């Protein structure tokens, strides 16, 4: 299982703050997981579209599309940050 977290605008438009999913067969990277989520269609396809400035953190560190995923990981999706 991996834990998926959604923050800010993504949390609102996707309609949930978090979920637990089995890492799908063939999904080994952030890019692969994002592509798999996009296939859910609707808001998922729209909000996670490649043109959208979505940031991803794996185990609370900023990640790149090629960052590897493993069972037990915490993967967070969020818009560019706006604190301070």
């Amino acid at each position, binding site marked *: 299982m991996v834990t998926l977290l959604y923050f800010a605008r993504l949390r609102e438009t996707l309609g949930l703050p978090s979920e637990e999913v089995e890492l799908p067969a063939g999904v080994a990277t952030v890019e692969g997981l994002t592509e798999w989520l996009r296939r859910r269609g609707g808001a998922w396809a729209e909000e996670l579209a490649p043109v959208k*400035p979505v940031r991803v953190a794996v185990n*609370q*560190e900023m990640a790149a599309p090629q960052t590897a995923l493993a069972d037990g990981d915490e993967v967070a999706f969020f818009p*560019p940050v706006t*604190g301070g």
Partner: protein
Amino acid sequence: MTVRVQTEDFDAGAEILRLRQNDPRIGAVASFIGLVRDINEGESVAGMTLEHYPGMTEKALAAIVEEAKRRWDIYGAVVIHRVGLLKPTDQIVLVAVTSAHRGEAFAACEFIMDYLKTQAPFWKKEETGAGARWVDARESDDQAARRWE
């Protein structure tokens, strides 16, 4: 090095005093306070909610402070960032840095703010006359952070 994320307000003067006192090596304290303004991008703002990513936020802030310590000869630093509901004139963030000479303290303080703005997982949702809206990241903040690369 102190990093705190909290809903409560903070006493900037007391935090700065705590950071600098009883250390006669310190010749300089540079500090920054960020406040909620009543207008943003041309819309009046009645208040805002600050959301964050508990756990990652503290790690990201600590990493930024460590990077500042690696780059400049600084003695201490404190970063406090509030979350939750805030209204105009409320304090959002405090960054304070101590060093022997002013150049290092100023640079490290501004560096921490620039990186906090682009790296620490906080998001602002403003209440405006036209309804609630998520604040968009600003290109000028990315530019400010790139100065330090």
